């Protein structure tokens, strides 16, 4: 089939403002949007710039706005969109070029919640025990691939860039609900501070968009509850 792509382009080396460019090409309906974007790059316009690596939704490189929604280009099939496809960079973070956004702030916030296992007790010679139930407690948030889709779909984040954003909170959840972790005291101040969980207005954009199907809003709610409980 013929597909018509409208892509938001911006190269600060040349352009003062972002602008739209249009491309037409033959595609298979079962192709990924990523395949089509690469065909455009390889056959029509090598200056079109995007990030990609795994091409099957596990590395988190190619998050972008496709037909108005945040999605991974490699996990979105043409047939689910129709022949007219609009592609833009994620919103709320600075654009470096075309579909490439600057992730510096995103990863700085990720780091701020201490995204690592904290338990200073000397470990046993074998594994630390954890029951299947305890393991299931935080399973959902271990799936996060740090693609940035949730954070850049969040109207609170667009309005206030100090907000940690859902992705950082998801990462905090992964440790806070791990029975082996003892880092809650270190993490909770960041989460309850000004840009922390209380900013969340439960808009659910994050949950709707997460390509890993994580219940992001639910995770944020659980962190909120944990904070309330701790304060009492």
């Amino acid at each position, binding site marked *: 089939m013929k597909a018509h792509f409208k892509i938001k382009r911006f190269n600060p*080396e040349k352009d003062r403002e972002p602008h739209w460019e249009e491309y037409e090409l033959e595609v298979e309906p079962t192709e990924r949007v990523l395949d089509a974007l690469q065909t455009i790059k390889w056959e029509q316009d090598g200056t079109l710039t995007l990030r990609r*690596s795994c091409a099957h939704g596990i590395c988190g490189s190619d998050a972008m706005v496709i037909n108005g929604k945040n999605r991974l280009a490699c996990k979105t099939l043409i047939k689910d969109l129709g022949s007219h496809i609009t592609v833009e960079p994620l919103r709320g973070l600075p654009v*470096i070029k075309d579909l490439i956004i600057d992730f510096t702030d995103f990863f700085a916030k990720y780091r701020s919640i201490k995204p690592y296992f904290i338990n200073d007790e000397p470990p046993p010679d074998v594994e630390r025990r954890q029951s299947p139930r305890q393991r299931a407690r935080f399973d959902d948030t271990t799936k996060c691939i740090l693609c940035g889709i949730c954070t850049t779909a969040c109207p609170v984040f667009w309005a206030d860039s100090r907000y940690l954003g859902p992705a950082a909170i998801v990462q905090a959840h992964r440790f806070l609900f791990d029975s082996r972790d003892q880092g809650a005291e270190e993490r909770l101040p960041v989460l309850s501070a000004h840009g922390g969980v209380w900013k969340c207005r439960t808009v659910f954009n994050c949950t709707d968009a997460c390509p890993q199907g994580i219940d992001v809003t639910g995770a944020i709610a659980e962190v909120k509850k944990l904070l309330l409980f701790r304060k009492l």
Partner: protein
Amino acid sequence: MEIHHHQYEAVIVGAGGAGLSAAVYAARGGANVAVISKLYPPRSHTGAAQGGINAALGNLEEDHWEWHMFDTVKGSDYLGDQEAIELMVRKAPEIVYQLEHLGLPFDRTPEGKIMQRPFGGHTRNYGEAPVKRSCHAADRTGHMILQTLYQNCIKEGITFFDEFHVLDLLLEDGVCRGAVAYEIATGDLHVFHSKAVLFATGGCGRIFSFTSNAHALTGDGLASVYRRGVPLEDMEFFQFHPTGLYPLGILITEAVRGEGGVLRNDQGERFMERYAPTIKDLAPRDLVSRAIYLEVREGRGIGGKDYVHLDATQLGQAIIKAKLPEIADFCRTYVGVDPVKQPIPVKPTVHYAMGGIPTDIDAQVIVDDQGTPVAGLYAAGECACVSVHGANRLGCNSLLDIVVFGQRGGVRLAEYVKGADFAPLPPEPEAWSVSQIERFLKGPGDHQEKIGALRAEMQELMMRDVGVFRTEEPLRQALAGLKALKARYQEAEIDDRGHRFNTDLLEAIELGNLLELAEVAAAGALNRQESRGAHYREDFPQRDDANWLKHTLACKVAGQIEFSYKPVSITKFQPKERKY
């Protein structure tokens, strides 16, 4: 283009499982280390690994490192170095416990221990029956390893240069002096002066068209050291994983068969019973991939086409949801198949490079059969060849390899830099890198050849002539074809002449690396006149231990590939016929 200068005792190139393990242990050993990666670390392809990591923990049934060693040696078709294999499998339980202590969320047994499952080629009591050896976190084990290691690098405060693409290794008079990297966001060059460099740049599956490997797996590290005169080992051995999702090539983990899935041909027959009567669908990958090709050749592909079915319907909803959620998601998303109800269409997909940069068991790069090291040069992970996988890697042994030898490399790196000085940089360390970039940025602009088209031609050629079945004539044609492609590459041009995030330029440079490696792989395949593991010559269908029980070293001398050889370390298990 600005040139920036940095000095670190040690530089690690690559931030997948191997690079990050090395970084954690180099830092703990007191080295001042920087990690350079062309992708953000959590985007590395280690995150794609699904099935698991092996260790004879015996959490669910009896298991021993000796059995693991035997399976790995036999799986390697006796080309794996037994000293290295023994070290790896003996270390495996400790490594898995360490990962758990670093926070890795493994699946658990009812008693709260690490969960294990069977995988291809792993057996009880030297080949009797499949054994539960693969430690896993659903079908996201690689994701969990990558995340856990990255998290611990953050904890250690390690310095990262994210989205920096290494172009060149600085190596003179057999002494490593650092590396040159291109900052993708700005187009600036960075010269890293260091006492030691460890390459952990992963695989190069993108020399083929149908692959489970990420777009970024272009073998940059391999090509960089090869261009600087370091040989590459056993590059003719490329693993085809039997179950790539048809028609995309995305991996469908062997864990599907580990959990009880079976392969079926067009007649619905479980054909692996004929090829490997004892362990059937859990035979090693080289055997299963050849079996699928043969079924297809004999007209038993599904609907006469070039794929077969992986049937997991008997597993039921609960197991698929709990143990194989990602796989189910891939099948539904990409081909509209629900594995609970329908069989999955699969075809062998290019998966893993057994060969690589030759190293000893401390990740130290060695260049010949005498064990001569290159001072300060290290390699670990898929880009290295220790060799623990020989002619065919067993499932779940790579994640083990990258963590074991990544860690050993990190420890060794820290020791080495304590005792070594900074060797002086060559006069214009960035010269070669500048020339590569300028050739593309300043070309005449008359567009003779396009990078994308050349790459596609190379990938098709490799798939056709250097695939699962190989013979002399097609291999000769492949080499001639690659030579022609290399010549046309010299004329190729790019559209993007800018400095900011120029991925057009990087893809062009990556293609240069791929072409180099495709040639080494094809030449090695032509050179090795026997069949062993993943390398199958229809004109030499037998394994030939008398002449070929040895590693190939391919070296670039005056633009030509020269072969030399290295003996295999054989300690506990003498080569035997390989039957399953």
